[in-house]
Structures are given as C-alpha cells and as structure tokens.
C-alpha cells in the first residue's frame, strides 16, 4: 500500500505545475520507503521460503534416496551414485508399451525443451518393469529414439527390479499372455524426481503439465548451483 500511495503522489508531483525540486524530494522518499518495503519482504520471503508450494507432489523425506544396482543400456553395471550431481527423473516403464510409456517420455522431452540449457543437469532414467524382454540393447534403441543425450535405459534381474519397485512403492504386474505369447504390464505411471544429492523430492503424474514439471525442476536444479 505504501509504495503505491507514494507512487501516486510522485506521479502527481511530476505534473508540470509542481516544482521539479519538490518532485525529486518526493522521489527520494519513495525510494527510501520502497527499499524498506523490499527489505521487509525479503525477510518475510526468507522465513516462508519452505512454504512456497510445489506444482508436483512433494515427497521429500517420504521416499528413500536414489540407491540401486542395475545394468545400464550399454550392458555395464550402474548404481544410484552414477547419477549424483544430476537431477534424476526416474520412470518405471517397458518398451512394449505403445501408449502411456512413450507419451510420458514425450512429455519429459517437452520438459527438457522448456528447461533449455538447464536440461544438461537432468537425466531421465527409464527403468524397465519387463526385464525379460527389455535387454540393454532394446532399451538403448528405445531411449535413443527419444533422446540419446539425457535418457538412459536400465534393466536388471527380476529380483533387482522387484526390490527397487518395492523400495519406491511402484506397483506393476504382468498380465496374461495372449495366444502369441505377448503380454502387457500394468504399472505405475508416476515420475520420481531426485535432486543432485540423490534425495527423493517430487512425484509427477500424467496429470502434471510439462510447464509445471519444468517450473519445479528449475527450483531443484537452482538450489544445486
């Protein structure tokens, strides 16, 4: 309210029939008051910084850190610490999934596009829930079709995948095979976001827009730098 009032007065004081000196004095007062208001706002913002709401679901402290031993899409072992220093977007999916998985990946590509240069701090980990069919090579081709630079496919033994899914409370289930032996996998569609220290921070669902995901990611990336 104060700055607005003073601004109005300044505006009036700038009208031609007022003395310039008078206007300058007013301006000086305005700057002073504005400065005080900004300082006060800064203190308040500092106190309430943690309260600033996220667009996505805040899971800080509710899920374990990024920690696993799996096989990368180059066939080499990969652990959670491989991705320390990057903001990791973890998605559990499978390549024989023609609709939801590629749509989720495409949305994450849009998010990377919106991040611009900040995208270099981000890695997308596509962890298969169908290790029987998703070999490292299949996964490599799959993630490369989206983005070879930021995305990596991860697989493992049934037990490794099961343990990891349990750790992050990811539900998945093999459906019945059709006569040709093909099958679908019912699975969780959420994207888990870990910060550069590997702490679980946010959960994005298919209802979150790429804009909302990008906005929250920027905050997580900024803290790091």
């Amino acid at each position, binding site marked *: 309210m104060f700055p607005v009032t003073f601004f109005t007065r300044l505006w009036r004081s700038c009208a031609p029939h007022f003395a310039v000196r008078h206007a300058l004095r007013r301006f000086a007062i305005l700057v002073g008051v504005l400065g005080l208001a900004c300082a006060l706002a800064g203190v308040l913002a500092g106190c309430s910084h943690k309260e600033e709401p996220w667009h996505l679901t805040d899971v800080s402290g509710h899920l374990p850190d990024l920690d696993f031993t799996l096989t990368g899409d180059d066939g080499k072992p990969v652990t959670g610490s491989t991705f320390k220093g990057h903001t990791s977007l973890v998605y559990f999916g499978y*390549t*024989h*999934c*023609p*609709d*939801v998985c*590629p*749509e989720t*990946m*495409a*949305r994450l*590509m*849009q998010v990377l596009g919106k991040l611009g240069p900040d995208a270099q701090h981000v890695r997308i980990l596509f962890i298969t829930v169908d290790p029987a069919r998703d070999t490292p090579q*299949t996964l490599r*081709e*799959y993630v*490369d*079709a*989206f*983005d070879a630079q930021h995305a990596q496919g991860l697989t493992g033994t049934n037990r490794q995948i099961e343990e990891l899914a349990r750790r992050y409370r990811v*539900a*998945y*289930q093999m*459906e019945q095979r059709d006569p040709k032996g*093909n099958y*679908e996998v*019912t*699975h*969780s*569609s*959420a994207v888990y976001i870990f910060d550069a220290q590997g702490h679980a921070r946010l959960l994005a*669902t*298919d209802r979150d827009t790429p804009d909302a995901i990008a906005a929250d990611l920027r905050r997580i990336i900024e803290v790091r730098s």
Partner: protein
Amino acid sequence: MKNNLRPFAQLSKLASACAFAGVLAVGAVAPAYAAGAAQAISVKNPWVRWLPGNLPAAGYATLVNGGDKPVDLVDISSADYGSTMLHQSVANGSTQKMVMVDKLTVPAHGEAQIAPGGYHMMLEEAKHKVAPGDTVHLKLHFSDGETIDTAFPVKSPAQAN
C-alpha cells in the same frame, strides 16, 4: 450431409417417399453422390507414434461423425501391419493398464478422440520397415458399413501431437 443433399432435394424427397427402393434408385442415378452422403464419419489428424525395432506402435486420430446417428468403429485392418487392435489405457489408482476394446462409439454430430493416454490403435508385426517420416495406411471399419482408408503420417516418438 445436409449441404450435400440440397442440390438433390427432389431426388432426396423421392427417396424418402419410396423408402428403400427410392434410395436404391438414387444410388443408381448418382452413385458418387450416394457414396458421399452415406459417409457420416471423417478422420482428422491421423498419426502414428513410431517406436524402434519390432516394438508395437500406436495410431491416433479424431473421428468426426457428421451424421444423425451414432456410429461405432468396429475394426481396424492394414496392409502395413500383421496385427491392428483398438486398445484403451485405463488408469486404476496410480497404475495404468491396457484393455482391448471391441468398439468405439462416435456420437451423432460429435467426435471420438483416439489420443495418447486413452484410446489407441495398437500396431504390431509391421510387414515392412517403417520409420518416422513414412506414411502407413489403416482401414477403419464402421458399424454403418463404411470403411475409411486413411493415410497416417509416422512420427518420431519424442514428438507430442
């Protein structure tokens, strides 16, 4: 449909009056017109999301019904794929599953979306190499007897439509 009928108002009246025989007569006199009028459904924004290797791809489109009656999409066939099925991704709590769908109803004077996260045409067993930039053809069969052969541009998976 109404626009198409206008120049043939006389014939149309005759057709309604004479019922079935009349319709046949109109068909005989002006086959092109009859075919155009019967086609209530049109297909908008068809596209296929390509996936590498032999992974199943998904076809999407918006079906528009300009007619007075609901029409069902009842079958999909293609010379480019060995297997084409209408599927639906269904959310159950936090998980997603796919279910096979027998038909998709396009409401009268309305449309049905076959779009990511919902209905999709699951395309498997490509008969030849298909890559982004190609065009594949899908035949959409409807309950009114109509079959629409539609060209679907194939897009890279990162492209969101």
